């Protein structure tokens, strides 16, 4: 059995630069290759020296496959650096939406970094490198099984979160690891909920951004968001909402559109141009990656064609008097237009900034959320008076959602990444306690070894398996014979096993009796009225196909459809003596059935007899 070794190079007890190395046996896979927004030095990328051991070799001989879960930069931002600068020639797997959107965000990121450093960053990856890197990408469809080689295969599942986000399962032999990337278990206005089958991975590696949060109901959060915006613009203020161009932005735009329509508002709403329009087109093309509601109505009306939201023009709108709402990129106020707008608007206390997502340490967004109000922009000290609101709209699973994905996939081990140490520790304890599963929370560079206990292999003839499964698609209870012939174990139908091994059946007869209240009616009379009751009762029940046989006056016999089994109910009058030695006549119904029929049938009949006892003729 191959053992599993997992080490996070990034996102271990942290959010940012997700990069998790997984080895199953001798196969090595890298899940995600992200950057850290909080750093501007070497720490913004995962430490790939760990893999090469500091040699001047490339990663190619060390890694069999790289898998990117979705287009957020903290999951793909280091990809060109890894593949073109450190060097990796092997396959990179992602979904099609990720493949088309990822290079745009990388290019955007590249421009921000090189502009900010004003030429100091001489060794940053180039546009050419992004292109070369993307040529190594292979597209993975949902549920499509891709064989990387003879031993290693991968399969993608829908993750919600953002357009094209996927969870990935890798399998080598009997062992598998499911990596959730970022996922969301509740459908929203534009995406569906994450889903995976009960694939029982050896390890589930889950993100844990909201490990300790059970977010208040989505509705009230949305109402709150709209109320805050409405109040601010009513007072003549400007609302700045920093967002990533793709992802939550579309969700909030749809929300605001519908509200503006309903409330008949005419306050202008803008979206900083550039990526935004392109983004909308991606949502139109990949409508199958959105949710059922959008899919079902897209022919008649495309939800992403906004009526109220217009492109933001800096020269006109930045200092335009009066209220407005502006969605601006990027989301963490670390650079670009959102930061520029913030600088312009932050000194006016009438204005409001709503941070709808998580901000990484070191960004202006993060500092603002942690109460800082004094900033230095281009050498000028600025004191911020803008009203600051934080509302979590990032589409991550909360504690409930994480437990849900564990229940859904039934892993043998759980590991948390992409979260804060204390929070994931808390949830890990809960998982261990409530579900009895080993749960790991390694820090970056810390290795987790999971030894895989050997599994016992038993063979079963396909036909027998089919008979057991009947039409149930994934699980069915059964009784069988397990035979060990010294070489291998086989599950056999008892009839086949008995015949093959010349062993005789041991019959079991189950008996139960029901006492009837005292009365004078004879067993024959009792049986007549019981027959009537049974007739009305068994239609549509388990007994439907059982046929009455025999014509005994004091008993009812039912035969199984193939006539091989019978069930009987006998009415008897017993002469007994009470404690005073007086004659007493007791009436009982004796129900008897063989074990080789459905035990529930016997139970059903005895229950029926008990009911009969209440209405039996005196």
């Amino acid at each position, binding site marked *: 059995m191959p053992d599993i070794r997992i080490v996070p190079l990034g996102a271990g007890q942290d959010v940012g630069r997700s990069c998790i190395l997984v080895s199953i046996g001798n196969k090595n896979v890298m899940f995600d290759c992200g950057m850290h927004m909080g750093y501007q030095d070497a720490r913004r990328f995962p430490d790939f020296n760990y893999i090469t051991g500091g040699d001047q070799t490339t990663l190619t001989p060390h890694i069999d496959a790289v898998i990117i879960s979705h287009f957020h930069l903290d999951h793909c931002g280091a990809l060109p650096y890894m593949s073109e600068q450190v060097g990796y020639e092997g396959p990179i797997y992602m979904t099609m939406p990720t493949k088309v959107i990822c290079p745009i965000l990388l290019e955007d990121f590249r421009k921000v970094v090189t502009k900010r450093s004003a030429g100091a960053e001489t060794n940053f990856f180039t546009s050419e490198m992004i292109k070369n890197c993307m040529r190594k990408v292979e597209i993975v469809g949902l549920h499509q099984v891709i064989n990387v080689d003879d031993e290693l295969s991968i399969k993608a599942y829908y993750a919600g979160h953002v357009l094209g986000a996927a969870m990935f399962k890798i399998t080598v032999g009997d062992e598998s690891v499911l990596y959730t990337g970022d996922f969301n278990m509740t459908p929203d206005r534009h995406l569906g909920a994450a889903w995976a089958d009960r694939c029982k991975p050896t390890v589930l590696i889950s993100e844990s951004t909201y490990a300790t949060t059970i977010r208040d109901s989505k509705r009230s959060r949305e109402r709150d968001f709209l109320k805050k915006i409405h109040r601010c613009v009513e007072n003549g203020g400007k609302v700045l909402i920093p967002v990533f161009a793709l992802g939550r932005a579309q969700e909030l735009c749809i929300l605001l559109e519908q509200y503006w329509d309903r409330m008949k508002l005419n306050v202008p709403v803008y979206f900083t141009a550039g990526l935004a329009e392109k983004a909308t087109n991606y949502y139109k093309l990949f409508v199958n990656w959105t949710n059922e509601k959008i899919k079902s109505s897209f022919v008649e009306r495309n939800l992403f064609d906004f009526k109220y939201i217009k492109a933001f023009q800096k020269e006109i709108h930045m200092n335009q008097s009066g209220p407005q709402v502006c969605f601006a990129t990027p989301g963490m106020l670390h650079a670009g237009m959102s930061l520029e707008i913030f600088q312009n608007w932050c000194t006016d206390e009438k204005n409001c900034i709503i941070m709808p997502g998580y901000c990484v340490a070191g960004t202006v967004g993060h500092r603002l959320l942690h109460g800082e109000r004094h900033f230095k922009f281009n050498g000028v000290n600025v004191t911020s008076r803008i009203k600051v609101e934080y509302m979590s709209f990032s589409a991550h699973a909360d504690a409930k959602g994480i437990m849900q994905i564990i229940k859904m996939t039934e892993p043998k081990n759980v590991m948390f990444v992409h979260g804060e140490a204390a929070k994931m520790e808390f949830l890990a304890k809960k998982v261990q306690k409530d579900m009895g599963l080993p749960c790991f929370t390694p820090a970056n560079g810390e290795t987790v070894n999971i030894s895989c206990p050997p599994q016992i292999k038993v063979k079963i003839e396909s036909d027998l398996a089919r008979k057991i499964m009947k039409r149930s698609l994934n699980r069915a209870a059964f009784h069988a014979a397990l035979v060990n012939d*010294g070489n291998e174990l086989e599950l056999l139908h008892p009839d086949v096993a008995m015949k093959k091994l010349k062993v005789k059946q041991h019959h079991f007869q189950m008996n139960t009796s029901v006492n009837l209240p005292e009365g004078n009616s004879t067993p024959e009379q009792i049986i007549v009225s019981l027959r009537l009751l049974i007739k009305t009762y068994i239609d549509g029940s388990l007994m439907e196909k059982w046929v009455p046989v025999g014509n005994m006056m004091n008993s009812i016999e039912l035969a199984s459809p193939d006539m091989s089994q019978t069930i009987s109910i006998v009415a008897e009058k017993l002469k007994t003596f009470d404690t005073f030695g007086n004659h007493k006549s007791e009436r009982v119904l004796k129900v008897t059935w063989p074990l080789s029929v459905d035990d529930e049938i016997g139970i059903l009949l005895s229950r029926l007899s008990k009911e009969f006892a209440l209405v039996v003729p005196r």
Partner: protein
Amino acid sequence: MELTNISSNTSPCWLLRTESIVILADCCLDFSSLIYSRHHHKTCPPRVLVPNVHQYVDLYEIDVIIVSNYHTFAGLPWMSKSWKEKDWGGVIYCTLPTLEFTKIYVQEIGLYMEEVENELRNSELTDKPLGNMPGEKMVEQEQVDACFSYVKTINYGEPIDLFGIASVIAHSSGFCIGSCNWMIEIYDKKIAYICDHTSLKTHASRVDTKALKDSDILILNGLKSCPGFSPDRSVNDACATLDETVKRGGSVMFPVYPTGVMLDLLEIFIDYLAQMGRGHIPFYFISPIAKAALAHAQIYPEALSEAKKEKASLPQFPFDHDLAIEKGKLKIYEDTNEGLSAIFRGPAVFFGGHPSMELGLARKLGKDWANNPKNKFIVTECGFQNNTFAGRLNVKHAPVDTRMTTTGAKLMVQELKPKELVICQAILHTHPKLRESVIPPRIFHPGKTHDFSSFKTYRDVKMDVSAASKVTLQPTPGRPDVCVGPISGTLNISNGQFRFTTDYEGTSNIEQKLWGAMTVEGLAKQLRLDGFKNIKVKGRKIMLDGGFVQLGTQSTHIHHDSNSVRRKILLSCRKTLTP
């Protein structure tokens, strides 16, 4: 394993059955009755032919249906009535685009047939009752929807395990958006099922031939139905006729299916007229489902050719239709009643149904244009060469059929190296040379069944060591080297892998058989071990609180009025019995 050919002509419909599983592959509609209807029984409402699957199998017994593309789905709604009556538990597998295009395709046919039928009923021609044609009426929408409710959509390359007996997996066939071939495994047999396969460049994603290699049986369907016409030449012919006609002030109609090759043709002809300096000639796509058909073509970038994928990643719509609509070059209407009479005057190009020219826009224009030799129909769909319309002067037959030629098929057989090749007899009418394939084909006449010998196979069930330790195996008297023991629990299957878990609860309503013998003393001891109090042995009777156990040599009677106690006693017996 039995294979039956249900296809009445070249439209595929096959039945695969073993004692444990019944799989139906494809079920097309046949429109030949439409043409027959028009020319022989003018007062008969239109009818279509549906494969007589029920003659070969109780529809309820079918476990799984696999569908290759929207053409081969359309015959299924006729079955859903009998499924509904008996609560069918089966599944129809197809790709998402196949499902969506089938919805569009079936809706269009339904509306068209209804339209003609209503017209016939209202016309004064029919003071006598309408005649009866062989074939089927369109099914109610409710029944169509019921049929779609059985569908589970799958992706290319997504293995589907069928009860541990078989598995199926779809691979792109290159024919249209979402179309596929299948690799089926039943018992020890690998069956490659090919339907409407093309290696030519189309708008759909490249065909995946490699995945079909080394099968035991190759079922080959859907070859080119008009071998004399190369797609390129037909397109050129159509372009020339189109240009000539509009130059002379006439209009052109293309009677087409609402998707498939028409998606390409629409682009090509708009481009072509523009190139010829006739960009002002308007294009109309007139069908009740026109809008949905074009919208759906744009949203499956994953299932499109590399060139179209490239466009999607820009991001632009993969097809130029939306651009043409934006520029006013292409207009879409649900039907001709939307104040369109004006546009019928000037030269224009029309796309719409139905290729048989017996339904829809083609039928209407067929009447209107009967006496106007200036206008032309260009039939680009295939399978309608025998249409008597085709003999008329204003009908140009230029079928664009991208499917395999005889030579292509023979080369492919050579490449795929199946052990056996299976074809439907009707295919030989158009591809007689297929007989000379490297692997001599086994020819199936309509309704023919052949029994392929196959061996039952074994599957592995994985079990945790802890689960296995709960089972007690005991040597058998006849063969002390062989051990046996009763095992109860749950069999789980996920991703084609069986696992066993020992949860005895939930197995009580399953038939159970035990074997061997036990002594009174042995059972009494075990009962005490299992926590029963006040055990008393009286001969072959063991008394316990509230009941007793009576032992015979090969039978045991358990008497107790509590269900749970009876089950506990039985568990003790299971432990005591020795073979």
